[in-house]
């Protein structure tokens, strides 16, 4: 019995250790080494890479990543909450709407991001229509800016907000809503005094599920930001490709990891039943 258990657990252990723990250790080691003359890493061991992160240039990138992620998360919450509430209250058609929320996952994220480029660019659908209707003379600068990146992130991660919110709202006892109205609360007051407080757990989960991948996003800022909106993800990618500075890239990605873990700790302490 004990041996059988070990055998069943073995693949899981192998994957976790081989594909997660070992690479992490390699990244750790690289981050403490120096950049080789033709890329790669070399001795001596140093803390130089970590100190470089505090260069104002990189702090700006870090700060931009945080605020863009925060704004995207806020938009996701703002859009996702009513959507989740609607789906949870949709009765028999609930499954249909839930499937619609998940439908985008059937197409590659890359292709969907390209689709946004086609919509937003100067000769794209939106600008063409606006000009045809003579609403604008020249094409609006919709692409290659912070706004486009936020739009792309909100679009991409909205389902991650909707699903945990839906799970919480779906469990909400409808009698509580009746009770609130019975005690004199209008639907609007009921929303703020009963529904919102009782879906706090779902909101926290949704915000984490959106904020964390946003913080590490690199495809969206790369394509929709056009290289002008550099986020941590782009910085890391850049160090491993163009800049050929693997040690610095490793240090930055480890800092990102520490940032995310710290955030999780903070939330977990507040919301004991969440994690």
């Amino acid at each position, binding site marked *: 019995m004990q041996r059988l258990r070990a055998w069943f657990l073995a693949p899981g252990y192998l994957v976790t250790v081989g594909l997660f723990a070992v690479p992490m250790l390699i990244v750790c080691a690289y981050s403490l080494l120096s950049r080789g003359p033709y890329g790669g890493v070399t001795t001596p061991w140093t803390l130089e890479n970590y100190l470089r992160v505090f260069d104002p240039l990189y702090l700006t990138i870090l700060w931009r990543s945080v605020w863009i992620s925060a704004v995207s998360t806020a938009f996701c919450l703002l859009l996702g909450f009513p959507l989740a509430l609607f789906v949870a209250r949709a009765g028999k058609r609930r499954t249909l709407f839930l499937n619609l929320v998940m439908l985008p996952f059937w197409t590659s994220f890359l292709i969907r991001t390209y689709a946004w480029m086609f919509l937003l660019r100067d000769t794209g659908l939106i600008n063409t229509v606006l000009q045809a209707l003579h609403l604008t003379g020249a094409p609006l600068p919709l692409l290659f800016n912070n706004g486009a990146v936020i739009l792309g992130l909100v679009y991409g991660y909205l389902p991650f907000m909707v699903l945990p919110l839906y799970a919480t709202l779906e469990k909400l*006892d409808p*009698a*509580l809503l*009746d*009770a*609130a*109205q*019975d*005690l*004199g*609360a*209008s639907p609007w*007051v009921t929303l703020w*005094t*009963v529904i919102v*407080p*009782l879906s706090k757990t779902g909101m926290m989960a949704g915000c984490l599920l959106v904020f964390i991948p946003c913080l590490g996003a690199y495809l969206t800022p790369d394509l929709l930001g056009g290289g002008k909106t550099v986020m941590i993800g782009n910085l890391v990618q850049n160090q491993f490709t163009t800049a050929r500075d693997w040690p610095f890239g490793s240090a930055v990605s480890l800092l990102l990891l520490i940032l995310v873990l710290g955030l999780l700790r903070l939330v977990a302490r507040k919301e004991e039943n969440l994690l």
Partner: protein
Amino acid sequence: MNTVLELRSLTKQYPDQRAVDGISLAIERGEFFSLLGPSGCGKTTTLRLVAGFEEPTEGDILLNGHSVVALPPFRRNVGTVFQNYALFPHLTVFENVAFGLRRRRPNETVDQIRQKVDRALALMQLRGKEKRRPSEISGGEKQRVALARSLVLEPQVLLLDEPLSALDPKLRKQMRIELKELQRRVGITFLFITHDEEEALSLSDRMAVMNKGVIEQVGTPREVYSTPTTRFVAEFLGGVNWLNGVGIRPEAVRMSRTKPRDDDRRSIEGVVNGSTFLGHCVHVHATLASGIPCVVEIDDRMTSFSPGEAIHVWWHPADELPITGTRQ
């Protein structure tokens, strides 16, 4: 008459069924009125129509003589105690009770609200539990919080949706007494929904028996029990024997080994099948001459019958139930 709540030909049609089918009722101020019926008879739908959670298909609901059909629940002066209490899990006992006051009495000061909540909690013996969450109190306490939460608003009518059914049997009997006592003290009209005939009989000033969306009979518990007008009411409230085509309660049927001589007593011969001991009495099951089953309630200490024994059952014509209704 001082009618506080009146239902006029109230109807609720759902796509697949007619839950409430044209019921009319007038409930007096200060009355403890029960709506009794089996599950699915439309009693809960009736309550939800009065509270405003559902809109009637036809008919009218008058509160103090004014139609409230067009008003949303948060503008109707009725309170509801829900079957599972529906206490707000994120709020303390105090906040639960204060919830309605904050919404319905926006002009009251914090102190006034505190005083009212304190008084309501004292009335329901909930002092000292103010800071607890609903998950931290017992079933009986939840029940009392739910009552306090509605009563603190002094509604015209308090609707109670099977409030005792979630309690364990012992607590249920105790709460039944407390509920009646409470209603007498606060003087608020209670509309009590239940499927338990014992609750309806013991609590109500008047009651209505509902079946398949219609009201079968309205009256005092005594009237409804001893003079049921329909077969359904007779059978739903206690057992009935159908002897020679008339209904007689098990406690009104007598049983003896010899044929009774008195002329105005009606009797039928039969054979004892067995008996069920119920504590305060015994139910003897017999099959009568014509093959009709019959249950007779007897006092076990007086006499006992054994299976296979030939017996006579008899009754006074005065005990025959005056069923006149045609409804099944």
